[in-house]
Structures are given as C-alpha cells and as structure tokens.
C-alpha cells in the first residue's frame, strides 16, 4: 500500500497537457471531423479544376462577374486565397461550429460531460481543454484549404512562373506570394475563432448540438441580411461578417492593412466575449 501511495499522485486534477492531448485525439478520431476536412480539401480542387477547364484569363463570360475567382485563371497562387474566401462563407464556419457543438453540447448529450466533471476536470480547465480541440479543428481546416489550394494552384491552374499577379497588376515572387497566402490563412483562423467562441458559448447552454449549428448558421444568415439593409449601415462595425471581404486585400500591392486589422480586432472582441460567456456558464452548469 505504501508503494502505491508513493506512486499515486495527490493532485486533484489531471495535468492540462494530458487533457488537451486527449481532447485533440478525440476530435481527430471523430468521423465527422475527418469528413468535413475532406470536404474542405475539395473546395480548392473543385475551384482549380473548374477554372482550368473553363478557360484562360478574362474568362469566357461565365456570368459570375469579375470576382476573385476570375482572377485565379492563369494565376494559380490566387487560388488558395479565393478558396479560403469561398469556404469562409459557409463551410469553414460550419466546421468549427460542428466542433464547438460536439465539444460541450454533444458531450452533455452523450452523458460524457458528467464523467469529465466527476473526474474531476475543473470547470475552467474544461473550457480550456475544449477550446484546444476547437482551435485545432479551426487551424487544421484552414491549413487544409490553404495547402491543397497552393498545390492545386501550382499544379492544375499554373501561373506565370510560380509568381502571383496582384489585383494591382504587380507581380510577386513565390516567397512573397506564399507569405500573402499565409497572411490570409492566419486572418481566416482568427475569424473562425470568433465563430468558434460564440458557438462554444451557445454550446455551454444546451445539450442539443443541433441548436449550436442552427444558432451559428442562422446568425451568419441574419448578419448577412442586416448588412444588406442600407438603413442599418450603422450596425456594420458590430457585425463579424462585414469584415470578411478583407481577405482579398492580401492580393493588393502595396498591402492595405486597414481592413485586415480592423476585422481582426473585431473578431478578437467576439473571441473574448464568447470565451467569457462560456466560462461563466460552465461554472454553473449542471453536469
């Protein structure tokens, strides 16, 4: 018994690193995470193949207007940025919302949240552990789109000798072009963390994962509608989605940082609010 006593730790909660590692392992083994990541990988591939098939610069008048997608033709390194912009409208938020929904509401629905609280994992620690899983999903999701986007852009679409032609007409070398892609990827991660924080907060209030998904997707739609109403223009600075066009700025030369910075700050405010609500709610939540 004494031998056992010296071996048995007397701490009252498991080490945070082990908890976070277990959480990340759990997240990555969940089939729906893998399905969503695979779907995300398809976005740049479908975009690249489509552009390669439909023609060269200027397009053949496909009616989609002079959007970012049109810029990709013959300019492969724009593809990851276009793909991130496209995925950010729905698929990326859906991915982090799913992860957040499963993180708390899903665990409650399976009765596993009780097990964690009884272990015990302290309630504040539980939020950190859950955040680790959700952040992992957000980063992986963006990485998948960016990396597959770069590869597809270089291989399928091709470009002017591994360079990127900016919207301003200048040409960036491969290194700087990849830097721009990384910038947009990082910016996208921060925007997704804002979505995830709000989703986690909702998740902390319910044991129905669908409620979280409905709240996040419904919220995005409502934000879109509000942004489209001219008399509500004063609301714009409050809406997370109103800064989501800023990713395109990375394609301008010189780089205009204004919108990228302001949308990042706005996202961080959402992160702080979401995290605070989550922690406060989890402190009192029944297990």
């Amino acid at each position: 018994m004494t031998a056992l006593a010296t071996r048995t730790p007397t701490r009252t909660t498991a080490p945070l690193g082990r908890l976070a590692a277990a959480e990340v392992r759990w997240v990555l083994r969940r089939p729906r995470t893998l399905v969503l990541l695979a779907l995300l990988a398809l976005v740049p591939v479908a975009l690249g193949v489509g552009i390669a098939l439909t023609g060269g610069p200027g397009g053949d008048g496909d009616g989609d207007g002079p959007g970012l997608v049109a810029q990709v033709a013959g300019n492969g390194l724009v593809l990851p940025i276009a793909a991130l912009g496209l995925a950010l409208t729905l698929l990326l938020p859906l991915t982090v919302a799913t992860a957040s929904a499963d993180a708390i509401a899903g665990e409650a629905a399976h009765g596993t949240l009780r097990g964690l609280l009884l272990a015990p994992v302290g309630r504040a620690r539980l939020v950190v552990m859950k955040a680790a899983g959700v952040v992992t999903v957000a980063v992986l999701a963006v990485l998948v789109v960016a990396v597959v986007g770069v590869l597809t852009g270089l291989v399928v679409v091709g470009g002017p000798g591994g360079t990127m032609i900016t919207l301003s007409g200048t040409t960036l070398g491969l290194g700087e072009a990849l830097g721009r892609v990384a910038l947009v990827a990082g910016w996208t991660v921060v925007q997704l963390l804002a979505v995830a924080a709000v989703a986690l907060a909702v998740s902390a209030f319910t044991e129905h994962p669908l409620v979280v998904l409905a709240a996040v997707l419904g919220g995005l739609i409502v934000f879109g509608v509000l942004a489209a109403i001219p008399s509500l223009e004063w609301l714009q600075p409050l809406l997370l989605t109103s800064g989501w066009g800023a990713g395109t700025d990375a394609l301008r030369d010189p780089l205009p940082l204004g919108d990228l910075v302001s949308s990042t700050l706005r996202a961080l405010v959402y992160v702080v609010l979401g995290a605070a609500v989550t922690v406060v709610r989890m402190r009192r939540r029944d297990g």
Partner: protein
Amino acid sequence: MTAATSTPPTEAAASPGDAVAARVRGLRKTFGSTVAIDDVDLDVPAGAVLGMLGPNGSGKTTLIRMLLGLTRPTAGTVELLGHAGDDLPAALPDVGALVEGPGFHPFLSGRDNLLRAAAAEPRLDGDLRAPVDAALERVGLTDAARRRYRGYSLGMKQRLGLAAALLVPRRLVVLDEPTNGLDPAGTRDVRRVVAELRDGGATVLLSSHLLAEVEAVCSHVAVLQTGTLLVAGELAALLDADAGGLVVSTPDADDGILALRAAGVPSYRAEGGVAVPPGPLEAPEVVAALVGAGVAVWEVHRRRAHLEELFARLTEEDA
C-alpha cells in the same frame, strides 16, 4: 439481542466520532414548483454499503447528483470525504461514480473510451493502458474491449460504465442503478465487485429498485419517497425492528401447536415447524412451554423481516 428501535431519519447513524464518507444536511432541491428533494439529512458511514431505495421519481438520482456536485442544492449542505462547499471537487478523485447510466462515445471502442476517461483522472500517472486494461478485466469486458461502443449491448455498456468508476482505487463508489440491463451473470458480477470494494475498505452507495439486490449486498439502507427520507440506518437493525415473533423448527408441529395453545400462545403451522406471532411470551418461555410438553425443538429463531415487506410497509403507509 438489543432492542432495536426504528431509526428516525434525522438521527441516521449520527453517533459522534463515527467516520462518515458522505453527509448531507437539510438538503433540498426544487425544480420550479416541483420539490425533488425535501429537507433530507443522511449519513453514509465510512466502510458501509448503503443501498438507496425508492420508487421511480423518489429523488434518488437527484440526491446522488447533489452529493457529487453535479447539481446545486436549493438549500442545505453536502460533505463528501471531508470536503464541502466549493471544496467538494477535491473529494472527487477518490470517488468513482456511475450516474444515470453509462456515458460514452459511440465511435470509439470501449477501451479508447476508457483511455479518454483515464486521461482525466488526477490519480493516474504515466502509462494509462495498464489501469484501463485492469478495469476492463475486472468487469469482464476484455474480449469486447476493442469493439466500438456503438455495437455494445445494454449490459456491456453498463459494465463499461462500472469499469470507468473503478479505474482508480476509490474511497467511495457511487453506483446509480448499476444492474440496469444486466443479465443474471452481470448482476452477480456487480455483486462481486461491490463485495470486493467493501472488503478493500471502500464505501459504496448504491441506488436500486431491486430489493433483493440491495438486501444481498448492503449493510445500510436509506428509503426515499417523493423526495423525503423515510428511514435510514443499518439494514439488520431495521429488519429486526420490523420483525416479530419466532419460528420454531420441530418435527412435531401438531403437538407443538397444541402445547402452545395450552400455554395461551397462538401459533400456526409454518414450513418445517411452528410460527409464533409476537405475543405476551418471550422466546425462553415459549421454548420452555414446548420442551415441557415433550415437543422436540431443533432450532428457534426470531422471524426476520424481508426488505420487501419493510419497503412495502414504509412506502405504502406514507403514500
């Protein structure tokens, strides 16, 4: 034999100096206008196997959830292994619990589910596989350990829940309806595990509606009815208090009945002898009357009540 009096709930095993594994005082929980638990005082003595009985909806699970800090009481205090209030979670590493059925993820195997649970156990260090495999072995799930939880039968799920409660040596194990969905072999296994825990010095709190189950393994009982604690205390004392009369084993049942009638004691034929309802005569006098009349007496024992009768009497007279 000591004259056992029925134990009023407020004095349940509250003799000072007794080590207590869990203690609640004035515990109350309301959900809206529904009173789930109404002013319950209960002690779970250290080393006891306490069976919590009560009809469905009597508040057993709510009481257990408050005891473990999963639900906040509306009023009253909870003390668990010496920790109370905001400090309650500090007791939890030494508490194993299976509450409201097993909770696991369907896409993981039973073993991977336990590994995930083990990662959250403060008392485990280093390699988590050894304690996980030991717990699986203990509940007889080794063969199914690598199958997905999705495909488990109800009994296997219940066994896995039990394994999670036994991942670490515990001082207190709380089992809420542990035999739900188990076949007779599974029920026996639960009984064996409870006995092992008790022999190892752990305290066990067991809620059940299977009275025979409780009677077989428990040293103490607490009976709940619509959120009120009807009675709590040592099972043997409660049954003795509820018992009455004597059972006399004799081959000469007819002579025995006649002899007792002559002594002014009513009696009737029972299996293997004569049953004597509670009456004016004490046991030695009854035996003397029988022996005096030349009736062979093999054995005399006090008729012990069964938990079922006690439970029925308690819950029905109050209803």
